């Protein structure tokens, strides 16, 4: 049987073809021996394989339509087994590809491995770079969340600024005059069919060309080892400084990816720096130029170890920092678009050009840089590869200025956002919408799509109504008018405590006509805290004081001692000189109050607030009530706006 099978196999097997194919793959000579510094190219192949495998997994669930895309991504992330890891690997894998590709390119350039007959290797590499960028751009839109939607719109709008053919380009890419179903089907087809085919073909060509030409021996291995006083040391310090600078900045600023970016930069900078130091004769080299290593197993083992490290980092990121999913795309909702981190430098560049000059930032500068990159092997001529050779200095200067420029622009973009409280506020709102969308989508998304789901959700609708109807007078989270109380943390204990301390503060009733209540700061912090606790608990106990549960008794006693009751009645329906506080903050109280704040039960004749019973439908009113009731937990979770809620400092004690 066994011999029979062997015989059958030997008949069908193309003689020696498999072995020859394997040999062709594994036979590569590594001049000077295998090194960890050569792993980047192979790591890119592995990373692409990871993207392909996880991409297939995602494609089993993803649905490219405006109504389904977000919901299907939500389903992958929250329902499918291993979905979070699957999507995380794909999401972070994209960033890793850009990062490793950057290092690979920089290294090829620095070692002069693109010169002369290797120019085509460089050019195919450049094409691959643009394909990877196109992958990033198209993939960013596919979840059809706010982030991807708005950022990609900016990109296609930029495309429209191309002279003459701009509009045609834009319409062709976005599949029509507006963003919608056809945009998604188009981006999906590009992302999963066209780009993978292009990338695979070009990568095979790139590697075949490289194999044909053979790896270069980095110049330091061929160098006369005596230190050379004429070597331009500044050329050495430049790349090292740029990479360390990059690592430092990213540690501090790339919040979600911070340590991963920094580690990758450091991992790339260390071998490049040591090899450069070696080539300058600063470190003695033990390399024997006569030694020739082999791809298998010497180099392949190193490649595998590095790739495993990269994949492990991606898996860890996916587990501890799941790939983000913003709220479903909604063109009617205010959103601050920001591109993915690797496009931030281009985004920042746009800020410097206005009016007719916009085209300089969008097309001219990136286009010129691309042209120089293409022309590099034609300009940087001659056989000399050493980065220390004076004749290569201008090119190194160009390349490392470019790298430094990218990092500086990225840094400036992040810095500008960090310093702008409006950005932080919009981000918080977006995060809240995202969290809410994920919460309401758990039971399934209606056929009209995820955006409709969120828009019809009472709490989300409440937020939108608040921004439309209330924030011209009330501010929230640092945005809105200042004519009426700031509602950041409304109904929370700390908000109530602030009110008791100083009702006339401009952040409370200072700017309204309601000045009857005096400051109760004199009660002392302990009593204020107890009183606020009591008042915030009333939302859950909308009953007459006789029916209060035992835990409210002490608070009620204090309420009476402080003579609050003489103005603010706690008997349901009893009018008084100040708002009735029976069931304060309960849905019933809020609904009643909003319907007509000017009745004797609430602000009475001094009321300036609109009668919302006439402006809003019953459903809308309920949404606003639900939204207002959410403000207290939001702040108690977050401890934000500490300044507003902190007890007054000594010396500024209320007069």
């Amino acid at each position, binding site marked *: 049987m066994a011999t029979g099978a062997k015989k059958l196999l030997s008949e069908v097997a193309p003689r020696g073809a498999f072995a020859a194919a394997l040999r062709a793959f594994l036979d590569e000579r590594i001049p000077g021996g295998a090194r960890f510094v050569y792993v980047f190219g192979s790591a890119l192949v*592995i990373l692409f394989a990871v993207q392909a495998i996880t991409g297939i997994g995602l494609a089993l669930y993803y649905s490219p339509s405006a109504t*389904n895309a977000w919901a*299907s991504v939500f389903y992958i992330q929250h329902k499918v087994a291993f*979905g979070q890891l699957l999507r995380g*690997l794909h999401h972070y894998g994209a960033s890793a590809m850009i990062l490793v590709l950057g290092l690979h390119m920089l290294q090829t350039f620095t070692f002069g491995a693109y010169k002369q007959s290797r120019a085509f290797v460089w050019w195919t590499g450049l094409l691959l770079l643009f394909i990877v960028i196109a992958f990033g751009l198209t993939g960013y839109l596919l979840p059809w969340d706010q982030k991807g939607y708005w950022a990609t719109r900016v990109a296609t709008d930029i495309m429209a600024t191309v002279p003459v053919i701009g509009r045609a380009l834009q319409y062709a890419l976005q599949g029509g005059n507006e963003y919608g179903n056809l945009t998604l089907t188009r981006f999906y087809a590009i992302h999963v069919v066209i780009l993978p085919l292009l990338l695979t073909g070009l990568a095979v060509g790139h590697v075949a060309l490289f194999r044909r030409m053979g790896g270069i021996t980095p110049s330091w291995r061929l160098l006369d080892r005596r230190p050379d006083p004429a070597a331009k040391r500044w050329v050495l310090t430049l790349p090292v400084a740029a990479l360390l600078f990059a690592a430092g900045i990213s540690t501090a600023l790339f919040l979600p990816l911070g340590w991963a970016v920094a580690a990758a930069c450091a991992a790339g900078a260390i071998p490049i720096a040591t090899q450069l130091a070696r080539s300058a004769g600063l470190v003695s080299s033990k390399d024997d130029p006569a030694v020739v290593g*082999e791809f298998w197993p010497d180099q392949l*083992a190193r490649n595998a170890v590095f790739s495993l490290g990269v994949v492990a980092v991606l898996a860890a990121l996916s587990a501890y920092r799941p790939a983000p999913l913003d709220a479903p795309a909604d063109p009617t909702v205010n959103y601050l678009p920001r591109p993915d981190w690797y496009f931030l430098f281009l985004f920042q560049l746009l800020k410097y050009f206005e009016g007719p000059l916009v085209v300089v930032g969008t097309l001219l500068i990136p286009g010129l840089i691309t042209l120089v990159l293409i022309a590099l092997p034609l300009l940087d001529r001659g056989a000399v*590869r050493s980065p220390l050779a004076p004749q290569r200095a201008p090119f190194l200067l160009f390349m490392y200025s470019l790298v430094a420029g990218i990092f500086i622009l990225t840094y400036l973009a992040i810095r500008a956002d960090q310093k702008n409280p409006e950005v932080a506020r919009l981000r918080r709102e977006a995060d809240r919408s995202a969290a809410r969308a994920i919460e309401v989508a758990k039971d399934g998304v209606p056929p009209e799509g995820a955006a409709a789901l969120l828009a019809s959700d009472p709490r989300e609708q409440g937020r939108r109504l608040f921004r439309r109807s209330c924030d011209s007078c009330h501010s929230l989270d640092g945005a809105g008018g200042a004519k009426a109380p700031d509602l950041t943390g409304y109904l929370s204990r700390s908000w109530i405590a602030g009110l008791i301390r100083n009702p006339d503060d401009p952040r409370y009733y200072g700017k309204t006509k309601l000045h009857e209540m005096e400051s109760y700061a004199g009660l002392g912090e302990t009593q204020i805290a107890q009183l606020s606790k009591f008042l915030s608990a009333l939302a859950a106990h909308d009953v007459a004081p006789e029916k209060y549960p035992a835990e409210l008794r002490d608070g009620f006693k204090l309420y009476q001692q402080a003579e609050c009751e003489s103005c603010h009645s706690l008997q349901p329906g009893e009018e008084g000189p100040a708002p009735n506080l029976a069931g304060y903050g309960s849905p019933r109280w809020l609904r009643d109050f909003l319907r007509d704040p000017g009745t004797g039960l609430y602000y009475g004749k001094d009321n300036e607030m609109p009668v919302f019973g006439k402006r809003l439908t019953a459903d809308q009113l309920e949404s606003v009530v639900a939204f207002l009731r959410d403000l207290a937990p939001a702040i108690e979770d977050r401890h934000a706006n500490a300044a507003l809620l902190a007890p007054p400092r000594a010396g500024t004690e209320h007069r």
Partner: protein
Amino acid sequence: MPVSHKRVYRDELIPSGLVPLGKRCSDREEQNRIDVSEHMARGEPRRVFLKWMAAIAGSAAAIVAAVPALGAALFPIRNRTVTEGEGFIPVGDVSDLTQGAPLKAAVRATRVDGWSQTKGVELASVWLEKKPDGSVKAFSSICPHLGCSVDYLPDSGTFNCPCHGSVFARDGRIVSGPSPRALDPLETRVEDGRVLVKFERFVCGTPDRRKA
């Protein structure tokens, strides 16, 4: 060879750099080849170690990517991706039913299909008949033979399947035809005059009744 007063880079001296094995053979090439074989002879245990390292690290990386992809691919085998009308679903009022005359009623319920949720989807229909004790008897209208929809013929007082001619009595028994089992009864309940049916699907074509 090297000129002492000027820095000389060796790659300028050897323009061929490194040529793939067996392409061109200069003296230098010959020299390298000898080095390779010597190196191999010297480092045999090292090579074995490197081979294992490559295999283990490579497989581990492949597993990290393959596990979630496979896990996601196989997820539908053990998990329900479509759920529809679980529990008792109201299908009509008792007052509409009369004894001895089965009535067809549509089962409408919420269908969750993957990520999407549609309310009021018509899932199937059931035959309802009021019993003398006031309870309601229900049969799934799906023929247990091959899944066509059975009709009630008042003249013969039987449920007939138009596809392959199975005939069932009013109590669901097989009268004639190819069906391997009687009509599938469904659990019912009457609440406040409303008829509720626990809708279920069964595997067709088997003599025993198995949930689909």
